């Protein structure tokens, strides 16, 4: 379980202080898929970096399976928005996926099997020898997802992973994340600014306020587990849920909780 308790992050530069995160508390159960959505500039990325152990919070704690996070924890993998900069251009697709496994000291046979398996799972079989920059943006992000999945994390953090790909690729990648999550039973924390994406993907959606950030609201997405782009998005319940999230985000931008009845 991922527990974020009273998390606070203040950036200091000289005399100036910027309070990015004020007081964030939420939990993600093992095997859950939670989407964090908030207005732009609400410190989503700061939050994710604190959870990933890449950034030291000013106050509060992050616990992963009971252990406090003080550096990048084992069993956690991250997919960055900037796939082009996160993948190493000097390595082939295969080497990019394999390198973290080497650092994990997995034996060669296991590495080879994992690389093959995950590239196949993300629909990139046959591109092992290509370099990331020879692939389209969507394919590059698939490589980054394969790299994270091959690491066999118990928790997968995704930082607006599809913000830079076109709408059709994005729909495909959303279904890929749902499929991988259902198959691997991995805990996924997915950050996005896209309300539709959050409702479509998540089993729960946590809404953040604008900066300085607190948790504005959270809801359980009671849509059926089998989702598809066409029917789920046309479901009246989907519309209700997205309206609720939308209103909360709008209220967050105005800086107060919405008075709308809970769904």
């Amino acid at each position: 379980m991922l527990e974020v308790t009273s998390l606070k992050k203040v950036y200091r530069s000289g005399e100036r202080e910027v309070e990015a995160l004020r007081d964030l508390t939420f939990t993600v159960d093992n095997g859950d898929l939670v989407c964090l959505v908030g207005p732009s500039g609400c410190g989503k990325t700061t939050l994710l970096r604190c959870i990933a152990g890449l950034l030291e919070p000013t106050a509060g704690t992050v616990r992963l399976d009971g252990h406090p996070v003080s550096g990048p924890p084992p069993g956690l993998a991250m997919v960055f928005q900037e796939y082009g900069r996160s993948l190493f251009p000097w390595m082939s697709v295969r080497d990019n996926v394999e390198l973290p496994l080497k650092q994990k000291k997995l034996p060669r046979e296991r590495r080879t099997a994992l690389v093959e398996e995950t590239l196949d799972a993300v629909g990139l079989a046959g591109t092992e020898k290509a370099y990331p920059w020879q692939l389209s943006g969507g394919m590059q992000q698939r490589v980054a997802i394969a790299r994270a999945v091959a690491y066999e994390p118990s928790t997968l953090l995704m930082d607006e992973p599809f913000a830079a790909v076109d709408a059709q690729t994005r729909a495909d990648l959303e279904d890929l994340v749902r499929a991988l999550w259902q198959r691997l039973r991995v805990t996924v924390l997915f950050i996005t600014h896209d309300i539709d994406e959050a409702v479509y993907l998540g089993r729960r959606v946590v809404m953040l306020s604008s900066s300085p950030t607190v948790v504005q609201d959270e809801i359980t997405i009671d849509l059926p587990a089998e989702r598809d782009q066409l029917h789920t998005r046309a479901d009246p319940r989907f519309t209700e849920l997205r309206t609720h999230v939308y209103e909360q985000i709008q209220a967050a931008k105005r800086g107060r909780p919405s008075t709308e009845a809970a769904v």
Partner: protein
Amino acid sequence: MWRSCSHDPGLSVKQRTGLLGLAGPAGLLVLVEALPRLGLVNDAYLPPASRIAAALGDELGTAQFWQAVGDTLLGWAIGLTIAVTAGVVVGIVIGAVPVLREATASTIEFLRPIPSVALIPLAVLLYGTDLGSTLLLVVYAAFWQVLVQVLYGVADVDPIADETARSFRFGPWARVRHVLWPTALPYVFTGVRLAASVALVLAVTAELVIGAPGLGRSIAVAQSSGAVPLMYALIAVTGLLGVAINLAARVFERRSLAWHQSVRGEVPA
């Protein structure tokens, strides 16, 4: 092959650029041939190109000449190797530790502009006319070229690439090996290319001024014994060595950096 459209249907663009590149040296040869022949300059100071070429032809047959070339290249190669190794190691250590970078920045800015030739008296004092003198000058001059480039390269590490490595729990050595080093590599190559040219200049200078064995000393000897065409021939040889070194460095660079933006060109996405 990509054919040019109008002028020379038989020549590719690359061949035409190559021919244009050769036109320069050819023109220079014609000029050097013509100036003394037309009596515009005294041929005691500038013999015609044909006579220089003849002197070079004779010289190519002597063991002495090849010994001098070997000595120059030896001093160059050893000096360059030391400078590159030291520059890369020091650059990565300083670059990777922010405190060190701040602490050394002013010292580097002070030491770097000191011309290597200003160290000639010191070199003679320490090593006399041995190879050691040449090496001191070559290493000093080449080291800064490499160091400064490596420092730029280390500063160019993409924070996202580094965070990716950290998030996958890469240790400090793995981050140097897999993130910092490949990022710095294009800069290292630039540094090596610059250092290789400077090292040759300093190797010849040391031989010329100090009298360490090599092409530089041969040039001085030819000049003092009045063998002017030979002197020009040897100068031309040092120039050709410089060109050869630069070409070799570029070919090596392109092969090693096939993945880099500057080499890979546009890829249809």
